[in-house]
């Protein structure tokens, strides 16, 4: 959503709807580029569907699907030629909104004075094409973390307030997806400028497209599209509804926040600690993980210093370092920190769950640890405990 004020305000209820073909998609990339946006979307590279700058809609992953399992990601050809019938890839939009490495400010000694300067580079203006429902929610969650508290992060704020979001509803969940459990998909929630639902059937390859903001409606008006017909609309809705029935994973039927708070001493943490390599992959691919560390550097003259901010991971031993050593020294405590934060204490800190059910942490775990399986095991433990212990 493009706004210069508050990124936490919900989208205005502007809603135009159209149906367009692949030519409309090509025109959409052109229209966004023409408005000065750097268009970023999914494309096939290095054996995966990655997010990258797009020069044309031809770069979209038409005809590519993915096979996702715990610890496994495989591209496969799709005979139907669909562009968005593939689940989350290794990256998420935080790569662009909350970059892995930014210079926050620099300090210069000028005579007797020290001058601090905020990084002057103007934020890029991104149009994100193909933001899945789960990832759309992830952006809303990072909005709250990085701009919804007493202090706003200027880097995120700058990039986010200028961003144009084209969401895409999910019709092809992967084997590791569980957005239905988390209430984040497969239909798109608010926060988009435009939203697409892709339909490929006997009537052809087309996109049902609606606007969610004034600028979205303006862009939509520029596209070669025709009025929405009920057949396309129905086929699109049916595709999304069917997707909801085909989730590869589910979370246990439990209040996850209470489950996390009540199982801090569960033996399951030792079990998962026996498998976890503390590599931090799950935190890198998670679309909501936001933790960072800092690095201070100086140049050779010693009169110019810079403050850099880098992604960090709660799996890093130094993450909780305090004087004598790390607070969370064991693998058990670090995995527990990540999972209880994501599913539990995130509510206390930011008013919602930190998990959107995208399944990336399951796919990219080198030892196939599955957050839904871990949650289920904790849930089973609470139910199997003798009543006097179940407080």
């Amino acid at each position, binding site marked *: 959503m493009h706004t210069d004020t508050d990124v936490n305000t919900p989208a205005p209820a502007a809603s135009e709807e159209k149906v367009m073909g692949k030519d409309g998609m090509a025109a959409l990339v052109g229209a966004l580029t023409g408005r000065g946006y750097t268009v970023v979307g999914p494309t096939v590279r290095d054996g995966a569907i990655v997010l990258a700058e797009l020069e044309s809609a031809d770069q979209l992953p038409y005809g590519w699907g993915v096979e996702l399992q715990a610890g496994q990601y495989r591209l496969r050809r799709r005979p139907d030629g669909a562009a968005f019938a593939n689940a989350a890839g290794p990256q998420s939009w935080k790569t662009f909104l909350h970059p892995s490495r930014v210079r926050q400010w620099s300090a210069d000694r000028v005579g007797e004075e020290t001058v601090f300067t905020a990084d002057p580079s103007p934020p890029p203006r991104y149009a994100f094409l193909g933001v899945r429902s789960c990832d759309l929610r992830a952006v809303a969650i990072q909005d709250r973390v990085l701009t919804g508290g007493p*202090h706003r992060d200027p880097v995120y704020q700058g990039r986010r307030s200028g961003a144009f979001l084209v969401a895409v509803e999910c019709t092809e969940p992967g084997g590791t997806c569980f957005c239905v459990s988390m209430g984040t998909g497969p239909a798109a929630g608010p926060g988009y400028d435009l939203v697409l639902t892709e339909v490929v059937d006997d009537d052809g390859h087309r996109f049902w497209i609606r606007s969610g903001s004034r600028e979205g409606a303006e862009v939509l008006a520029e596209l070669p599209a025709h009025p929405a017909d009920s057949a396309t609309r129905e086929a699109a809705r049916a595709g999304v509804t069917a997707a909801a029935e085909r989730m590869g994973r589910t979370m246990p039927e439990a209040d996850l926040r209470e489950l996390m708070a009540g199982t801090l001493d569960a033996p399951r943490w030792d079990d998962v600690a026996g498998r976890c390599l503390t590599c931090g992959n799950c935190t890198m691919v998670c679309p909501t993980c936001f933790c960072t560390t800092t690095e*201070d550097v100086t140049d050779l003259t010693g009169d110019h210093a810079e403050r850099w901010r880098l992604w960090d991971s709660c799996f890093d031993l130094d993450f909780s370092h305090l004087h004598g050593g790390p607070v969370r020294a064991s693998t058990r405590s670090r995995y527990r920190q990540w999972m209880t934060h994501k599913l539990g*204490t995130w509510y206390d800190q930011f008013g919602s769950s930190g998990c959107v059910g995208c399944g990336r942490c399951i796919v990219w775990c080198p030892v196939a640890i599955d957050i839904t399986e871990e949650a289920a095991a904790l849930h089973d433990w609470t139910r199997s405990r003798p009543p006097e212990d179940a407080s």
Partner: protein
Amino acid sequence: MSTVTPPLPYRVAATEPETADTRSVELVPAGRELPPFSPGQFAMVYAFGVGEVPVSVSALRGRHGGLVHTVRAVGATSTALYRLREGDTVGLRGPYGTGWDLDAVAGHDVLVIAGGIGLAPLRPVVHTVLDRPAAYGRLGVLVGARTPDDLIHRKEIDDWRGPAAVGVTVDRPGPGWHGAVGVVTALLDRIDLRPDRTCALVCGPEVMIRHTARALTGRGVPAHRVQVSLERNMRCATGHCGHCQLGPLLLCRDGPVIGYDRAEPLLTVREL
């Protein structure tokens, strides 16, 4: 709501040695000034090219009208800050954190309990209470330190005797020490504690905090009237970096000062 900005340059107006490894530094703005600090809040203090550390204010107004921070040289950045000399410049961001809830303390007996350098964040509380004695009940100040030479703000503690009931104890006495020896909680037996009227403010190493808070609640002070100042790794101080989490809390935002009623269940979980 504010947007995070670079630090502001502050100049060292004075330094005061406290112990062999600890020094108080008074900072005055070299240009623009930060918003006012409250007792218990902290600043991120940047040593040029070395790094930034959170440091509580140990006085809101020093002799030159500046902010006073008391720094113990334990790491690279704090050692650089310890070595600051008059006229040097640092970067300062803040104020951050909750600070001591002095509104909740008003009308109550105020019992300040400090261990080691934990006295620094509590010193502005003593100043505030001494400035406005009518707003508070009795003031007690109990201080524990490793040795007599490790006592910070030592001269000032002596000045508080009279208006406040002051107790000082050390773990290891040296020659010439005529004060008490033992943990700071032992002093609780020797003051006229009125548990039903007392608000206690505690700062020190976490084990000392837990031990002290238990001693207080054991004597009948309700846990919500025991405020404690906690410490975790802090990088950003603005709630964005995730390092200072303690279960549901982001200590830079929800702390460092919280009620012991909230702290206790968190401090007893290992490696939380």
